């Protein structure tokens, strides 16, 4: 594919402004002297360029996208249309609050939904993404201890199966992270008890965890952390397994983030925008980011509270992403919410049961919304790795699962089909996995060369990292 710069032709131009005779002089001192090197294209050239690029991009609208812990479910088209309603998309964020009652109503209603789904008391939609939500919750925990003059609490417990964002977010808030080993894929009470002390600020957990297992000791875990004076934070990346079935509130958590771009069907946009809504209970609500929405008999206002950690983002968060999530929740309702999680879990178990006679499952139990294959034995016996299998999946037209995560499984493939895939698609996935297994053991295909049928082969990542070329002309 030609780069947009390579399709540039001098004096091609898309833009035409209305006629205007004004001409004010800008002092030379403030003027840009450096030449702008942007490409020059006509409108049709711009349209063809990006249309061609979009065709070389795999998306959920193309097919199954079973990235574990990413919850790549179908993104309903209604969401997009609602977000584009003029009454939402053309509203300036600094309008008088009396002229944005619809926006505040949407945020308030979305708050009611996420609080009910999670069993929490309050929420904020300001964080822009999951990691941003984690970071915000960690700051709230930091402030909670500080206000109680409990300044010794500088440690956050994180299991070794956690997402990388967890330790990074905790460190950003000045916490030291304490990693605890999992046992049989779940948190070991023995390991946890070893690290509990009056220096513990809290714990970060996702449940079900990244192995797709429900933490059986969850009530004991959160109680033990609370008993030692710490708080419990829930990473909502994996909520799709338990909506309407089990709530972080009852599990004993104090705060959490939700990835609206995972569980709540808003599109991921090739990396974002997402939304990292956060919810918390009474202990922490006074620290939520400003401004807070107040609803007094249907009149909505913004309020800044002194005890807040402050703002974490401009304005009120990724507003139209919240709108899409709200639209989705209204469509589902209490019955659909539950049905969604039930089917997400069923679909994952169905694939697992369809291939576990051939591939080792990291922990062979009933899984929740995802499960992890351990291809260590496979690799030993065939010489092919989890990466090779992933690349071969591409040849068969499906997006590979999450690879090499969680870190506690060596040759990990983490599979999350989501509830929006049909039995027919799941059967296809099972067949493809079985076929690849046969190819690997019979050596009929050299999987290290896969993908074989795509326009592009494997990329040289080493050279790219050693000698980065990060813009046109580098």
């Amino acid at each position, binding site marked *: *594919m030609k780069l947009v710069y390579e399709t540039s032709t001098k004096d091609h131009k*898309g833009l035409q402004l209305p006629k205007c005779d004004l001409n*004010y002089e*800008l002092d030379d001192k403030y003027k840009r002297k450096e030449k702008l090197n942007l*490409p*020059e294209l006509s409108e049709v050239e711009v349209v063809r360029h*990006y249309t061609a690029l979009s065709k070389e991009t*795999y998306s959920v*609208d193309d097919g199954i*996208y079973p*990235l574990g812990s990413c919850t790549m479910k179908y993104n*309903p088209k*209604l969401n997009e249309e609602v977000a584009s309603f*003029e009454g*939402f998309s*053309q*509203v300036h*964020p600094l*309008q008088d609050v009396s002229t*944005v009652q619809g926006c505040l109503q*949407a945020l308030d209603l979305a708050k009611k939904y996420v609080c*009910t789904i999670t069993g929490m008391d309050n929420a904020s939609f300001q964080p822009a993404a999951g990691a*941003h939500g984690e970071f915000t919750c960690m700051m709230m925990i930091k402030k909670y201890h500080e206000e109680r003059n409990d300044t010794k609490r500088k440690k956050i417990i994180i299991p070794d199966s956690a997402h990388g964002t967890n*330790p*990074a977010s905790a460190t*950003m808030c*000045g916490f030291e992270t304490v990693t605890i080993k999992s046992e049989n894929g779940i948190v070991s009470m023995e390991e946890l008890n070893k690290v509990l002390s009056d220096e513990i600020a809290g714990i970060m957990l996702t449940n079900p965890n990244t192995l797709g297992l429900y933490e*059986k000791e969850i009530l004991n875990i959160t109680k033990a952390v609370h008993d030692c004076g710490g708080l419990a934070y829930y990473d909502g990346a994996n909520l799709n397994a338990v909506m309407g079935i*089990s709530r972080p509130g009852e599990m004993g958590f104090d705060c959490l983030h939700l*990835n609206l771009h995972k569980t709540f*069907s808003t*599109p*991921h946009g090739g*990396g*974002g*925008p997402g939304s990292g809504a956060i919810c918390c209970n009474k202990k922490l609500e006074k620290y939520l980011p400003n401004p807070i929405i107040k609803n007094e008999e249907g009149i909505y206002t913004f309020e800044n509270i002194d005890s807040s950690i402050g*703002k974490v*983002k*401009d*304005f009120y968060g990724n*507003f139209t992403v919240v709108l899409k999530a709200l639209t989705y929740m209204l469509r*589902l309702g*209490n*019955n659909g919410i539950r049905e*969604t999680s039930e*089917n997400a879990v069923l679909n994952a178990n169905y694939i697992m049961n369809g291939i576990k006679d051939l591939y080792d499952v990291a922990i062979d139990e009933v899984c929740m919304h995802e499960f992890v294959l351990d291809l260590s034995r496979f690799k030993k016996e065939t010489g092919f790795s989890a990466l090779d299998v992933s690349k071969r999946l*591409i040849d068969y037209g499906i*997006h590979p699962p999450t690879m090499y*995560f969680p870190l506690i499984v060596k040759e990990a493939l983490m599979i999350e089909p989501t509830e*929006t895939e049909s039995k027919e698609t799941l059967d296809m996935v099972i067949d493809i996995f079985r076929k690849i297994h046969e190819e690997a053991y019979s050596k009929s295909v050299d999987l290290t060369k896969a993908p074989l049928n*795509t326009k*592009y*082969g*494997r*990329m040289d990542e080493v050279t790219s*990292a050693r000698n980065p*070329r*990060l*813009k*046109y002309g580098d």
Partner: protein
Amino acid sequence: MSYTVNSKKEILEMLEACGVDDISKLFEHLPSGTKYEGLLNLDEGKSEMEVYNFMKDMSKNNVVYPTIFRGAGAYKHYIPSAVKNLSSLSNFVTSYTPYQPEISQGLLQALFEYQSMICDITGMDVSNASVYDGATAACEAMNMCLDRKRKKVLVSSSVNPSTLSVMKTYAYAYDIEIIEVDLKEGLVDKEDLKDKLKEDIACFYVENPNYYGLLEDIIDLGNIVHENGSKYIIGCNPISLGLITSPSEANADIAVGEGQSLGIPLSFGGPYFGFMACKRELMRKLPGRIVGQTTDTKGQRGFVLTLQAREQHIRREKASSSICSNQSLCALTGAMYLAYVGPVGLNEVAKRCFDLAHYAFNQIIKIDGFTPKYEGEFFHEFVIKTPIHVDIINQYLDNNNILGGLGISDNEMLFCVTEANSIEEIDLLVKLLKEVAL
């Protein structure tokens, strides 16, 4: 109603394959005390038509102003139809972060081009693939400059107050101190800056144009900051870069900004995107996703996510930032906008904003009682002292379907004029201001 697919019959077959007879069996192992019995206390699901109408009605509870003279961090520019249309291409909208380059070349290339364009307009060497917004971009930039010996940050008091407040929140998290630099005539007071530059100052952050729309003396400020061995961060408005001094011309170490002006609708504050670009020597400190050019096994040019060892999924607790998701689709929209306007068009849009804003400024200060607050040159925003309370003015403008300037005190209004405003709109604004002040 959910978006699940399978019929009852299919579900039964699947359950059987899993060795259970009922879906509830898959949740049997959840410990007692963690299960929610019954249905959540929410309405039951509704049809698409009902939800559409409900949300449509809700949207009507907002006022949409056909004419806007307010900016202060969110700007109404004209968005070309082609850009609107391209930014909703479903393969860009519904794809994930491009972890598998073989089937994501289109997206990776588009992000590589975005990085190139951000480097073009800022003049910097290296750009990432976007962060959450302009305010958090400033925070991430500040974080890039901290080291063992330099743990304090200077920020001009002329930056957007919302950005400053987000920086203060991040500073609370990082346990670092932010010191504000005073102003003189709405611009950075160079003497105060010199006084406050100590050896523990990691960096200085200034915005150009600043919150009051004024153009700072960014070249001189850069010299002062670098003399102290501190890093220099400039927050910029991308449209303005078609006309005014670029961050690289001012020798900035890092350039950041809010990208919303580049084809992103106002949308009540988000999603927008933050751009970040820096000098080559800071490349490995730049947070977030970065796309690099390479070759594939067939020798073709290709693109991959690169320098990943900086990031949280590898570096975990040692990563300098936890950012994972960014604002890719918004960044792509920005790139589409820049490709559409091109170098000449970006200059034209910037110059038109400048011309119309100066026209409006000159007309407004002719009205009795309306005077400029500052003398300095500005881009497309300016502060006017008003003879009556700003709320009265804005109410009057509102009655005429105009969103007036932002009241920044009882008698000071921050106006913004862009290429989306017409001379006729400005003339009407001036007429209404005259009437209301009578």
